[in-house]
């Protein structure tokens, strides 16, 4: 009997080993003297949507930005601990460029460049040295299709991306990210600047995208986390309070603080 349980555990562990994409161990982060993350450990599974929730200033966006080293842009940031993506420590390697082509990002507000829609989507591939027109055309079309916006923009690829609506812009941002063919897509409150209908479209898109990509999404909207994610991590004051299958976090939280937060008692 005991033997059986052990074998089952080993099998589970092996499975999690196989499906885990990102493993974070004892991650602490400091902005100068101020500590923003305290010993965060977390395993993110491949081709699943992982939501990070928590009140403002809890460190969820800071955590997200450690995964593609965007915090490197800020002066005075210090990081301890390990982040392994595909078993490679991303802070040991100095190739930030390679990391960021593998880990794409979508920001809080649409941040398309003042160029045409086509040039925006082709921006990343071009920077990687792809010049062949046919190849670029193919990437742009595939990416826009992948972001479910091809039909809306296919006749105006050469016109300015800034003429699109906010929701359309955000989906082009997603297309721009997937044009790099990343493994992981980080989303930092991607719908916070969008109206409900555009939000719904982006959420539907996330459900589509997880077939191919590992998605980590920061959201302050708990319904959104419940709708789109497979697993949810609850952050509070720079620590992970609870990390579990989304259903459990929302309907059967283990920690009192999680329960207080998801039932809307604070935050």
């Amino acid at each position: 009997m005991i033997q059986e349980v052990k074998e089952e555990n080993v099998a589970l562990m092996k499975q999690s080993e196989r499906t885990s994409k990102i493993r974070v161990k004892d991650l602490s982060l400091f902005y100068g003297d101020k500590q923003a993350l305290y010993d965060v450990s977390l395993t993110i599974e491949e081709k699943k949507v992982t939501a990070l929730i928590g009140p403002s200033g809890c460190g969820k966006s800071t955590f997200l930005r450690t995964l593609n080293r965007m915090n490197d842009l800020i002066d005075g940031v210090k990081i301890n601990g390990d982040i392994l993506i595909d078993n490679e420590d991303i802070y040991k390697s100095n190739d930030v460029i390679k990391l960021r082509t593998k880990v794409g990002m979508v920001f809080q507000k649409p941040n398309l460049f003042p160029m045409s829609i086509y040039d925006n989507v082709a921006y990343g591939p071009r920077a990687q040295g792809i010049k062949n027109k046919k190849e670029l055309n193919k990437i742009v079309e595939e990416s826009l299709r992948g972001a479910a916006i091809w039909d809306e923009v296919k006749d105006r690829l050469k016109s300015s991306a800034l003429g699109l609506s906010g929701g359309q812009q955000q989906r082009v941002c997603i297309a721009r990210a997937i044009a790099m063919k990343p493994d992981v897509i980080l989303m930092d409150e991607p719908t916070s600047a969008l109206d409900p209908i555009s939000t719904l479209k982006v959420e539907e898109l996330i459900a589509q995208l997880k077939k191919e990509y590992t998605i980590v999404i920061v959201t302050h909207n708990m319904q959104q986390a419940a709708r789109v994610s497979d697993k949810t991590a609850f952050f509070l004051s720079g620590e992970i309070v609870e990390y579990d299958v989304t259903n459990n976090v929302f309907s059967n939280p283990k920690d009192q603080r999680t329960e207080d937060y998801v039932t809307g008692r604070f935050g």
Partner: protein
Amino acid sequence: MRKFKDNVLRGLLWFSAFVTVGILLLIVGFIFYKGFRLINLEFIFGDYSPTDGGGIWPMIVTTVYTIVISLVIATPIGILAAVYLQEYAKQGRLVKTIRFATESLTGIPSIIYGLFGAVFFVTTLKLGMSIIAASLTLTIIVLPVVIRTTEESLKTVPQTYREGSLALGTTKLQTLMKVILPSSMPGILSGIILSMGRIVGESAAIFLTAGTVAAMPASIFSSARTLTVHSYLVTQEAGDIELAAAIGIVLIVIILILNFSATFISKKLTKADY
């Protein structure tokens, strides 16, 4: 009462705008009125005649030389310096000092630059009184203008553009060349236009470094006379206001042509089709 205040304020705003535009129109009108009679093909394209001061083609050529040479040197150096200060340098005491220095440089009277140019470029570097010595002096004069305006326009590029570009796995240089510089192009251009204005309007510094030779310059190493210097000399020596006004008209036209072509070029550069 509130309505009254509103009306008073509106009146003041309107009055200020009217005064500003009015003065400009008055000056331009005066110059055209005084000088227009002298403008003809012979006056502009003819050889210089010392007796009536007409035939200003050599001065036009000299003026264009100084503009082009100064900008060709000052623009790249100025833009690179601004990019370094704004995008690369660690914001600390050194950068603050450099910024303070460039700001102070814009306030120094041009005669001081002229004296420096006369000592350094003309004498020490043995360039002699020449177009090149004047152009180098003008380069120093406009460099702070280019740096300041470029820095200001780099500051207006949203941080989200930088993040968006870097998050796509581009290098800092690619981000700079593909996103940051193109979107700050209008600001950089206005700096260049401002610089052109300063170069064309400069006379004291040029007087001291290029001299006053009223003849077609054989090369950029010749001494020569720009339009403003010529204008100064004819007023000073002959008291000929009409002639000076005619030169003023030519100067205004040159400035307009340069401004329009600068705008045109920048539109071409930034692909203005959207």
